[in-house]
């Protein structure tokens, strides 16, 4: 009996592809594709993203040499899209990672703090969650000037309390377990316990939260660029491409549809990935595997 148990466990849950949730596969595929496209932009784009070509303005979709057509300056839309993916991912990855790290540390600290400090900080976190992020971005843009830096800073400020709040609950739950008290009982310090016992046990929650936040960050980046607070020309951005296309909706509707679809696909990809990860880590699902 012992050997049988050992056998089934020596191969840990290396799940076969078919056993993974569909949303995880589709989301992972979309996100992977997006990352590849963004990386591709460093070595190759169909056309130069900045050069203006007055003769080839407003080419429709499926034109010769311009699969997705050209915009009002005659720039290749596909190239704009690829460069935009790079910017979108850059902004969302940087802002999400920074806010996730700070937010997680803050959350861990709050959860392990004494009752009074915990009360004060978690009220602060609640207030932080309630502040409208777009407003923060506007204020920042006027203070430090519009651009990626303003967008990233705004998203970081916006997401820190959000990610802190996601971490607090599960951390407190883990902290209430006996093995934590046992660790204190053999002389471990608070931060040792937080990093070595709590963090590994809430890592799945953080990973899921990260992918949800990526999706949100992409959407926010697009909104900010659309409002003129985010990336400035000549940096390509989906949001700005969308905005520039808005007045031309009747002349060249595809100019709006294309970046819009790109945003939808990116957000959908990350959301599906997050959803898939959640299902994957769900203990009840895990038991079935």
């Amino acid at each position, binding site marked *: 009996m*012992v050997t049988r148990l050992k056998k089934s466990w020596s191969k840990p849950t290396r799940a076969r592809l078919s056993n993974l949730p569909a949303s995880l596969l589709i989301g992972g595929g979309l996100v992977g594709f997006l990352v590849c496209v963004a990386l591709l932009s460093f070595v190759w784009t169909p056309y130069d993203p900045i050069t203006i070509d007055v003769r080839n303005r407003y080419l429709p979709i499926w034109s010769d040499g311009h699969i997705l057509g050209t915009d009002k300056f005659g720039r290749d839309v596909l190239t704009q899209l690829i460069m935009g993916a790079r910017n979108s991912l850059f902004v969302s990855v940087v802002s999400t990672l920074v806010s996730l790290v700070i937010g997680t540390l803050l959350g861990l600290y709050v959860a392990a703090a004494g009752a009074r400090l915990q009360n004060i900080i978690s009220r602060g976190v609640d207030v932080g969650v309630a502040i409208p992020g777009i407003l923060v971005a506007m204020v920042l843009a006027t203070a430090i000037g519009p651009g990626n830096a303003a967008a990233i800073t705004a998203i970081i400020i916006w997401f820190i309390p959000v990610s802190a709040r996601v971490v607090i609950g599960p951390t407190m739950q883990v902290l209430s377990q006996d093995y934590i008290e046992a660790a204190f009982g*053999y002389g471990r310090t608070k931060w040792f316990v937080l990093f070595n016992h709590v963090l*590994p046990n809430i890592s799945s929650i953080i990973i899921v939260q990260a992918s949800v936040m990526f999706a949100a960050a992409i959407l926010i980046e697009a909104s900010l660029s659309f409002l003129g607070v985010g990336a400035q020309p000549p940096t390509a951005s989906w949001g700005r491409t969308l905005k520039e296309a808005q007045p031309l909706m009747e002349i060249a509707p595809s100019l709006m549809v294309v970046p819009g679809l790109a945003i939808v696909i990116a957000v959908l990809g990350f959301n599906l990935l997050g959803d898939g990860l959640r299902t994957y880590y769900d203990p009840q699902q895990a038991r079935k595997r």
Partner: protein
Amino acid sequence: MSIIDVKSFYFSYGSRAMQETNPWTLCDLNFSLEAGGFLGVVGESGSGKSTLIRNLCGLLPITKGQIQVAGYDMGSLNHAEQLKLRRSIQLIYQNPKRSFDPRMKIGTSVSQPIRSLEKRVPPTTELETLLARVGLQPDYLDRFPHELSGGQLQRVAIARALSVKPIILLADEPTSALDVSVQAQALKLIAELREELNLTMVLVSHDLAVIARITNSVIVLKDGEIVEQGDTASVILKPQHEYTKKLRAAASVVSL
């Protein structure tokens, strides 16, 4: 000489401001335990028995009064003394499934107290010896907690507690989360190890029968107060306090 000495000890959760209105969780406790003694603490939920055992190993602060353990005054410990005390006193928990980090292999978990308190990484042979002492095969070191049954995990918990060679072992309802068929096993192991290693032991339980079987002296706790204490035989066979009598009667009705 008493190894545990508790004098007019009070404890209350919450801040000092609340204590005016809050009744004490533990109220005016006085008892002592000789080295090598085996004390049972019996009480129902809310009696404060789990709180008391955490006070004894310094996991909760002292609100009022005095606790001396192994010569240390628990109210005024500096950091070095605290570490020394942690080596001499260890606690075993009620629910073994909750007392192991689910993401740590058994071997890693068992080695934690040595790593933390003796600042060294124990060799595998040492861990294997620890497991062997509680009757487990060395291959359990590479398993994760969820691969073990409750009874096996409780053995591992005992091995972990004994790894730093404590002189006092505290146990908080160590058998009540286990299957009936392995309760006696775990209890027997604890009692045998206690004799073998000459440990001083405090066993907290709601089960008067368990306390009666293996302890030498007993404290009956009710609502944070000691209602009766003495050597186990006299308290069990000739209870004086009404509450002890009631407990005994209730336990006897469903006892085989």
